[in-house]
């Protein structure tokens, strides 16, 4: 049992479809009204069927009032670190602190290259992501003098600092493999894998935790401060059938189990169905919170 005692967050993973134009925004509004904590959007700039995710997030932020928003996750190879830092900080200030930074090292390199960006090997991509995080934090920091990061893949020489985000913004990284997980342990604030990519199901989280915790400890960081997150998908149905396929009570038990067993504290539902989003917010989230709180109180 690994429970880091993190407060629980529940969110949606919304397809940033460009057709119908406002569908993704409307789903964010549904999630906002339903009381979810997070509205997140995938980022595949090489696919024209999707909106530009950052533009969508900025626009959706204007149409919502309470919910926090982030990429899930933004494709670093097609977005520059200093611009990511400035744009996130800008929107965080405009929204009064509702923005987090979800970042990925890049997944579909053919698409990335087709758009005109460089192709990196998996190892290079980890290094590049580490450098990017360094630049982003440097832009946000209030230290004197300009940013100077001289990396192998990113150089920021004399970039002006600021603006700083309105709140202590988290950097959440989509990751599965050891090198990336170790980077998270050293430098990021959360890990954000998708359940559908975990071959062994939620149990794979044990290995994810192991890598992150070891690396955090080695870097002198507190493992419990690194948020464990999970994109999930499932079906609400009349009677329990299998993991996340059943009524809301069963979902709650399934998720509470993952929270208590692996310390996962953020569940992000991949769905474009308003009814499912509402059921997740209204029936599942409170029940998970209750189950987890009861267990933690023991």
């Amino acid at each position, binding site marked *: 049992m690994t429970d880091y005692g993190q407060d629980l967050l529940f969110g949606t993973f919304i397809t940033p479809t460009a057709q119908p134009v406002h569908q993704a925004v409307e789903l964010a509004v549904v999630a906002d009204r339903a009381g979810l904590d997070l509205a997140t959007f995938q980022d595949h700039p090489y696919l024209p069927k999707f*909106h530009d995710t950052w533009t969508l997030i900025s626009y959706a932020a204007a149409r919502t009032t309470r919910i926090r928003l982030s990429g899930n996750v933004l494709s670093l190879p097609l977005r520059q670190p200093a*611009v990511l830092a400035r744009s996130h900080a800008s929107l965080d200030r405009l929204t009064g602190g509702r923005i987090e930074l979800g970042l990925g090292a890049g997944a579909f390199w053919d698409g990335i290259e087709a758009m005109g960006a460089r192709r990196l090997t998996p190892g290079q991509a980890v290094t590049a992501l580490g450098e990017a995080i360094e630049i982003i934090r440097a832009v946000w920091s209030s230290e004197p003098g300009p940013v100077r990061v001289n990396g192998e893949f990113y150089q920021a020489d004399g970039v002006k600092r600021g603006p700083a985000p309105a709140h202590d913004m988290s950097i959440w990284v989509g990751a599965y493999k050891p090198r990336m997980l170790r980077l998270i342990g050293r430098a990021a604030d959360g890990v954000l894998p998708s359940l559908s990519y975990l071959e062994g199901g939620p149990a794979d989280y044990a290995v994810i935790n192991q890598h992150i915790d070891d690396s955090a400890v080695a870097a002198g960081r507190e493992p419990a401060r690194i948020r464990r997150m999970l994109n999930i998908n499932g079906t609400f149905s009349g009677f329990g059938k299998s993991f996340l396929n059943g009524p809301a009570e069963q979902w709650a038990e399934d998720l509470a189990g993952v929270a208590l067993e692996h310390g996962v504290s953020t569940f992000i539902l991949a769905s474009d169905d308003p009814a499912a989003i509402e059921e997740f917010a209204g029936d599942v989230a409170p029940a998970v919170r209750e189950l987890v709180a009861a267990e933690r109180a023991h």
Partner: protein
Amino acid sequence: MKHRLRFGALVTSVAEARRAEELGYDLVAVSPDERDPWTLLSWIAGHTERVGLAVTGLDAADREPTVLGRAAASLDLLSGGRLSLALTGEHLGEVTDIVRGVLDADQAGPLRYPGEHHRVPKAQRGPLPAHRIPIWLTGTDPASLALAGRTADGWIADLEQVSADELVTAYKIIEAAASEADRDADEIRRILIVDPDRSAAELSALGADTFLFRAAVLPDLTAWETLRDSSGPSVFRPASVRSKRRDGIAYDELPASLAATAVEPGDLDYARVRSTYMRGGAPGLVLRPTTTAEVVEALAVARAHPELPFGLRSAGHGVSGRSTNDGGIVVSLAALNTIEILDEARRLIRVGPGARWMDVAHALRPYGWALSSGDYGGVGVGGLATAGGVGWLARKHGLTIDHLHAVEMVLADGSVVRASATENADLFWAVRGAGANFGAVTSFEFEAYEVGDVGFAQLVVAADDPADLLVTWGRAIEAAPRDLSGQLIMGPPRPGQPAYAQLMAVVDSDDPETIIEQVQPIAAIAPLYQQEVVLTPYAGVISNAADGGYHQGVGEPTSRSGLIEHLTPAFARAVVKLLASGAVHWFQIRTVGGAVADVPADETAYAHRSANFSVIVMGSSKQRVDAAWAGLAEHFDGLYLSFETDQSPERVADAFPPATLARLRELKLRYDPDNLFRDNFNIKAAAR
């Protein structure tokens, strides 16, 4: 002046942007500060409704140009076509080319751009923005000015940084570069950042057409309003757009009300309106009226071009109706799409022709009502409710037109009339089955009926003996209670694979036992491969079309229709031969009969009331389809025009029995003697 004068405001916050919007400013522009300007602009877009949006200068180095193109398309779509893109930085020629290449979604093939500084191997294009996003360039050095002259849609300068004299020189350089590049310099907007302490005369002396005021407190526009009102037209089409115009169309004589929404071949929106669901098209002009009065004007334009093809369109699902064409005029009623409840006690509703049937179903659902239309939710009210409407509840509730109480329509002479059982009764008779020959219906009044949840069965059955299957299915349908309507779909035999048929049925009952009891005899006609029976709102059955997007039909469909009373063994054998020919890829039988047959044949222009079945085939080669179809002809008694692409006089005679046709021809002579309405089963007017 070629352009309409515009006034904008430099803003730094939502509050200022909203203030500018309230004051009637045309646009707001953010100038970069410590914050990311694109983020601020997107945020402002989400907080405003109407005002144009720009950044005074977006550093092109901040984004991969391809990503910038996508981002621009997104913001333009999300904001409803309000974006202008002003760029600063290096290699702007290349960046502009790439951004435009991404935005040009209608262009075939990926974007390949082997620039010196920016290389794009093969980026997918799109999404298509909401309007043609103007790209403004900056920079006062000769190279920047020349670039603006060669490629930009606008050039932006700040009067704090250039003097009025330098401005004159700059405009000259831009003009020279434009003409060297064979462009009309008038295409390039001149945007100027100024302090608002100038009179109208001083402003107009500067030679710009867009003024962005830099002011702590925004002035209202009264001092300059006259200047704006006396300036050029609000729609400006550059030569590159005008060059795609087709012959014989008086583009520049459109009334202002139509000009604002009209689409011509060079326009960005052309991709969205040129084709329909079933056909590819290349019309010369698409008019998009938004009111009945504008429909009157649009029909006048069509009347003024008698030698060109003319198509009337509602939601663009015409099979028989040529609602697109090549080089002609299309009047699209898509914007007339309201759905209103007129009288809740009598279940009276009023629907615009541009509404889609799935939208109607969703609007009626909260009342527990429905109106049977067809089997596809994307089909429009306009085309279907002027022809018939063979839908999922046809045997129980009859055709869609059987629930029509009245229409408002614009006739060929431009008059707007109401037709109902008591007003213009002949027209009302004609509209219900041959409406496309008599006018443009601008609203329909229906009486909806109560429909609770319904049973929806989708079965796949073995068709080892297809002829036998057809006959037994036909008998089962005829024996079924009227609650049940349905259809059968069969494909050509595929070597080495078992033959099967898809059977669908809707049972208008919310009682599971009744549903099973009524579906059972249908399911029992052959061994079942698959079955799914669900209880669903009627709206759930018809919500089967995608939202968003636009029609991208290509080519010309071939579809044949026949109405038949009983599926006899001889007919079934002929069908088996037709399927074996391989000429058709789609074979479908829909149920009519029941309540459809309760209505006397002479009550509406849709007259073939005795048929129990409507048979449809589609194929790609007209010749082969016709040859195969010929074997079935003797079994039919008439056709349903909505599924027939052959428009010959013989088919018109198949659609309308002699007495009906004779009456229609008399009415055609009375209401449309010059044959304005001719895109769908054209009826020849009786001799004068």
